[in-house]
């Protein structure tokens, strides 16, 4: 059964066709990759799922419920957690406090929220830095913090927007291991936009490819990389491998 | 009341409104480029008014003639303020910038109080009581002169931003700060220049305003608020909007003073401000960001 069902959504910005009639679904418990060259409409699609934009046409179902008219906070409460491509830490707060903000969605009491946040930080390898101000973190740590905060809202579906970009290969592999573990042990479904092909290939069981706002291919990683349409749209594009 | 009273009051409000508009133009230019809200704007206006009063009472120099040197003095004041005080605050949070300018305003308004005392001071020129009659419409000469001067200064400012290299460079800074840095514009100097130009507008407007009203130190904060209302109504950062807003507020104040009570006239302006903020927050002529 699919947890997320995106049904022919479109979004235009002042005549610019950002996303056109895109449909795909994410199976419950699955890991789905969303790839495509720059400007393909990946982040716009993401923002429609997360409730930042309402689609012009089409609908988005989450666990069978239409969510495309909901606000971002309602979507988060429904069980979809997201990260931002350009990280948005609460700079004035400590690392632990950042994650506690997320944890308060499911835990009303500060003590419980703190315990939940601390556990997530350990899991992401940020335990030692929990009392530092978020503004002092390096970029890889900020990316981890984004993930930790989203996880603290206990999502059924986790939307990851280029969380590997800028990480070194070993850091990237650590991240991949974290997501695998999360998926296996907690059953969290994951939808990730990623430029780092190494991570997508290692993680995703299904991949959807966007180009010029339209879906051009879907399938397993092996199928997608052999698809002529995909090869063509990436030709001349610099892909990180 | 006969109809010509309304017309007379409306025309008088329109002429005063043009001077308001020039004052607000200064605020709008500064905000549009430097992105700092000059909370000491009205205080700078009163400085110019006092300068005009002093020059007139000691040397019989006409405020409209002294407009040029006084605008020059205010330009220098604005330039130095931006360079020395405000520039380090460009990237600080809004409330921090606000407190800086509140401190400046506090010093300026009370400095004026110490120097000039609390009593109202004004000028009486040869044309103070002259008027022109067009049909049954009677207009005060000083209002006509002040409004024409305001239009002339505004036109000069439009020309400066449209045709001169410095004006174009300032507009480039306003449109794209990073781009301006990349192409090698001296942004700090241009910001100071802009603040100077905004202050010069206020200086010129002060010289005109002193023909219409007597000056007291508390006029400063009142004009600051008035300038805010005008630029928000017209559109913060829009030059045409500032003039339009000035005229609108001038006319509505004059009519509200006639219909309701003179003391209620600014209630009307603030009501208009609230409406504009809610219905068209970018202002009448502002662009939505």
């Amino acid at each position: 059964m699919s947890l997320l069902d995106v049904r022919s959504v479109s979004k235009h910005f002042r005549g610019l066709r950002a996303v056109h009639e895109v449909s795909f679904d994410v199976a419950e418990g699955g890991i789905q990759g969303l790839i495509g060259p720059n400007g393909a409409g990946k982040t716009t699609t993401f923002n429609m799922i997360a409730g930042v934009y309402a689609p012009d046409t089409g609908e988005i179902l989450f666990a069978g419920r239409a969510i495309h008219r909901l606000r971002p906070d309602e979507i988060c409460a429904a069980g979809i957690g997201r990260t931002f491509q350009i990280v948005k830490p609460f700079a004035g707060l400590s690392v632990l406090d950042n994650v506690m903000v997320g944890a308060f969605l499911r835990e009303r009491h500060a003590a419980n929220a703190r315990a939940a946040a601390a556990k997530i930080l350990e899991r992401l390898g940020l335990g030692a830095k929990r009392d530092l101000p978020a503004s002092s973190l390096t970029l890889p740590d900020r990316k981890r913090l984004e993930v930790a905060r989203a996880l603290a809202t206990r999502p059924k579906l986790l939307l990851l927007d280029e969380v590997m970009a800028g990480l070194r290969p070993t850091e990237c592999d650590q991240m991949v291991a974290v997501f695998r573990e999360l998926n296996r042990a907690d059953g969290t479904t994951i939808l990730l936009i990623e430029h780092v092909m190494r991570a997508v290939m290692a993680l995703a069981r299904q991949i959807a490819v966007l180009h010029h706002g339209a879906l051009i291919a879907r399938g397993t990683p092996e199928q997608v990389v052999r698809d002529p349409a995909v090869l063509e749209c990436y030709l001349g594009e610099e892909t990180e491998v | 009341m006969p109809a010509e009273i309304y017309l007379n009051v409306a025309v008088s409000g329109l002429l005063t409104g043009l001077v308001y508009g020039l004052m607000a133009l200064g605020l709008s230019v500064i905000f549009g480029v430097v992105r700092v809200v000059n909370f000491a704007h009205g205080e700078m206006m009163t400085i110019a008014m006092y300068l005009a009063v002093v020059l007139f009472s000691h040397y019989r120099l006409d405020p409209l003639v002294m407009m040029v040197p006084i605008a020059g003095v205010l330009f220098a004041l604005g330039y130095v303020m931006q360079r020395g005080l405000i520039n380090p605050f460009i990237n600080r949070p809004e409330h921090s910038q606000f407190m800086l300018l509140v401190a400046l305003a506090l010093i300026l308004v009370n400095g004026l109080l110490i120097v000039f005392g609390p009593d109202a001071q004004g000028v009486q020129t040869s044309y103070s009581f002259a008027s022109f009659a067009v049909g049954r419409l009677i207009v005060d000469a000083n209002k006509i002169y002040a409004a024409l001067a305001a239009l002339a200064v505004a036109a000069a400012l439009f020309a400066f931003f449209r045709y001169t290299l410095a004006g174009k460079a300032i507009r480039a800074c306003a449109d794209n700060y990073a781009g301006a840095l990349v192409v090698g514009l001296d942004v700090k100097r241009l910001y100071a220049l802009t603040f100077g130009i905004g202050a010069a507008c206020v200086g010129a407007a002060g010289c005109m305003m002193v023909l219409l009203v007597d000056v007291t130190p508390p006029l400063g904060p009142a004009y600051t608020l008035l300038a805010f209302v005008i630029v928000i109504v017209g559109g913060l950062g829009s030059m045409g909007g500032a003039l339009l807003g000035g005229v609108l507020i001038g006319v509505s104040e004059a009519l509200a003073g006639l219909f309701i009570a003179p003391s209620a006239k600014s209630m009307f302006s603030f009501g208009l401000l609230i409406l504009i903020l809610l219905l068209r927050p970018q202002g009448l002529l502002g662009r939505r960001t």
Partner: protein
Amino acid sequence: MSRASVSLAILAAILVALPFLLGNYALSVATLILYFAYTGQAWNVMMGFAGQLSLGHAVYVGVGAYAAGSLFFHYGIGPWAGVLLAMALCVALGLIIGFLAFRFRISGVYFALLTIAFAEFTRIGFDHLDWTGGPGGMFLRVAQRDTWDLANFRGPPLMYYYAMLALAAGAFALCAWLLRSRAGYYWQAIREDEEAAQALGINTFRWKLLAVAISAAMTAVAGVFFAFYYNNLFPEQIFHISRSIEIILGPVIGGVGTLFGPVLGATVLTLLSDGITEALAAVGWEIPGIKQVFYGVVLLAVVMFLPNGIWPALARRLRL
């Protein structure tokens, strides 16, 4: 006990004992310090915690003062009922301003100007409201200095001092609790990055409204105190923008968003203002305006050299 809680206990003891050490004049200065510590704390909930800059907080002082003042003036109803009306009216007003601003996505400078506009609008409105005395003001019946009439909040300076101390301490405790609860975390998240806050499931509209409502209710109580302490109310004075600025000076100088900032800022400012007045009187420079110039210079210096306020710098020194 930590250094911080020991210091707090000592401070509390000093404040309780203070009336027995001070004369009447010094006691009135201390009352004023507590008053500004209280209003600063209230403003801080909105700006320091939730990041919504209000430059029109005088409107809540004024509406609160006039609400309780009118009940007493016209119907002889004491401030204990009046404070409820004051809080209800100010919460309603705050919710209206907040609802309009947040629904229409007005933020930053525009929000600040909207709050000024509402305060000015209300000031001129009261100038034309005959029921409250218009520009001529409203005068509450003054009692003998040595009567103790708690029902009508009439008593000696000592009573006002302890009332203000209770209010300031209550506000401090409330803010400390809020800051450590879900509300405090949510507000700070909204202050730091509203979009990220919303993505974490926070209904930012509702939480911002809550901050405005709490801040307005707290400030309304200060208004009621003002009415019964000074016994005369003039729209021109109570709603004026300089009153709004006075409220925010303390927390800005002490440290926006901190618990001790408003307290420290109010103390420094009030003592300074008082000290300047006395010093100027001593040298015979009683020129109107000169005190405000000094005030401005001090403010300028603090804003330039201690951008986060005095408290964060002091706390680091004291290792609290």
